């Protein structure tokens, strides 16, 4: 299970700088019943993917082809989730969600100015980029022993692991976004009379908003991925702790329940952020993100 965490802790941002709005695209059509239908179709297809997975899972579990009988059926797992939610599991979901949101936000807030610094000053970038990449490559779980030594086993210790993961992911995305700003916009602003500070606040800042939002999405994903590592630090509650404890008692259905709930929470948060960013960066000449 930790392998999963490490792998996703290294995931690369999938978006570069937004492509320049090249040739005339004609007036953009937005809204309308056609768009709504397309959205419904997309939603249904997404659901179909999940249903397919559950079906394959059901067949595999019922046929007992893998797992030596330790692969529970979807029904069993959903039953555990359903009864568990009324029985303390909902509280774990809430605690984990709050941990992720709060500490990832702290990480992003700390990373944005650093990303600006790196993106805007070539000297800072040259000096700090290798360092950032070094720390970014470290899996958060490897830090657990050190965090326990220096920060104890309280909430702060868990927060630091989440913050760490979010911080370095955000720094990289923000600085790559800013470094990718097209020269023509900076020059246009300069010839209209912008001084250095105005270029920063009126060109670089608005240009970087989509990158910050992308960074937030990626960081939340990494935050959820690092959650188990964070809650390894002697946590009594939270979904990571649920998985740990269930694993210790070989309560496999509950392990699956914890994993599925983490995935669902991450999915919901990502959808919310995507909803927000579509509205915030309407200007971007990009079909679907």
């Amino acid at each position, binding site marked *: 299970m930790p392998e999963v965490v490490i792998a996703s802790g290294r995931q690369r941002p999938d978006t570069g700088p937004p492509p320049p709005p090249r040739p*005339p695209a004609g007036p953009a059509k937005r809204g309308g019943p056609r768009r709504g239908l397309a959205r419904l179709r997309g939603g249904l297809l997404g659901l179909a993917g999940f249903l397919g997975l559950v079906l394959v899972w059901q067949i595999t579990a019922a046929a007992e082809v893998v797992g030596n009988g330790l692969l529970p059926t979807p029904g069993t797992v959903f039953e555990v989730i359903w009864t568990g939610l009324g029985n303390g599991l909902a509280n774990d979901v809430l605690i984990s969600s709050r941990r992720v949101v709060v500490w990832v936000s702290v990480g992003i807030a700390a990373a944005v100015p650093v990303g600006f610094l790196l993106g805007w000053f070539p000297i800072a970038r040259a000096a700090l980029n290798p360092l950032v990449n070094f720390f970014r490559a470290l899996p958060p779980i490897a830090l657990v022993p050190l965090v326990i030594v220096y920060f104890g086993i309280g909430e702060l210790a868990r927060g630091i692991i989440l913050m760490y993961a979010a911080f370095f992911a955000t720094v990289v995305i923000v600085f790559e976004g800013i470094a990718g700003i097209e020269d023509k916009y900076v020059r246009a602003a300069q010839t209209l*009379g912008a001084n250095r500070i105005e270029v920063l606040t009126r060109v670089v800042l608005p240009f970087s908003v989509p990158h910050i939002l992308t960074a937030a999405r990626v960081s939340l994903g990494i935050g959820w991925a690092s959650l188990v590592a964070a809650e390894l630090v002697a946590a009594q509650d939270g979904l990571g702790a649920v998985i740990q404890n269930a694993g210790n008692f070989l309560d496999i259905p509950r392990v699956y329940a914890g994993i599925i709930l983490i995935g669902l929470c991450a999915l919901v948060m990502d959808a919310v952020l995507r909803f927000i960013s579509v509205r915030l960066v309407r200007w971007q000449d990009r079909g679907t993100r």
Partner: protein
Amino acid sequence: MTTTVNSGGLTLDRVSKRFGRGAAAVTVLDDVAFDVPEGEFVAVVGPSGSGKTTLLNTVAGFVDPDAGQILVNGKPVTGPGPSRCVVFQEYAIFPWLTVRKNIEFGMRLRARRRPAAQRREITDRYLELMGLTAFADALPKTLSGGMRQRVALARAYAVDPEILLMDEPFAALDAQTRETMQEALLEINQKERRTVLFVTHQVEEAIFLADRVVVMSARPARVQEIVPVPWRGPRNHELKTNPEFIELRRHIETMLRGGTPTPRKETT
């Protein structure tokens, strides 16, 4: 041609620019000197890659010359600024701002700040002049290339620069839109006379728009000849088929191909 102390307009005083060092150095601009008197529209034509854009970037202040200097209203250029606003070939209007906000951009900056009421009035005027009023609140991504360049022109005029610099602003447009834009530029410049330095590789466009055409040589760029354009006042595309126009065009195109020995420079 040597510098005369100019009361207004733009003076290029023996400007040279080299890129690279030592044996690998390439001279891009060689002793380029000409004036753009206040209120005049001067076009610069030259073969592709002859350093026209470098010339314009030097005037804009993005590139420092190795020798010589550039004077705007008698003051030397030291860096980019709103006294020499540039309209670029690529669509450089800000995609996150609406058409109106784009045009207002320069008037919100410290260098050319104007009070809100005046800003609105000026913006409304250029929206109207450029036929953009209906698109005031549109985002650039919904506009065609020609419309985007209209916004760029309006934005440049709105900061009221001493010199307008245009770097092949219509080169990315299709032929038809290009003609429409040439007319739009002539029209706005008729109503709001500005000093314009317009760089293009199209001889026809240069003659059609300008009062004078500066003909550059292939790299390193030198001034081959400064050709006065005899027509004044409103022009339309009929002019392009006028025998005199065609003759002038042929003359310049021959020069650009290096067909005739460089004639003596003439000035008006």
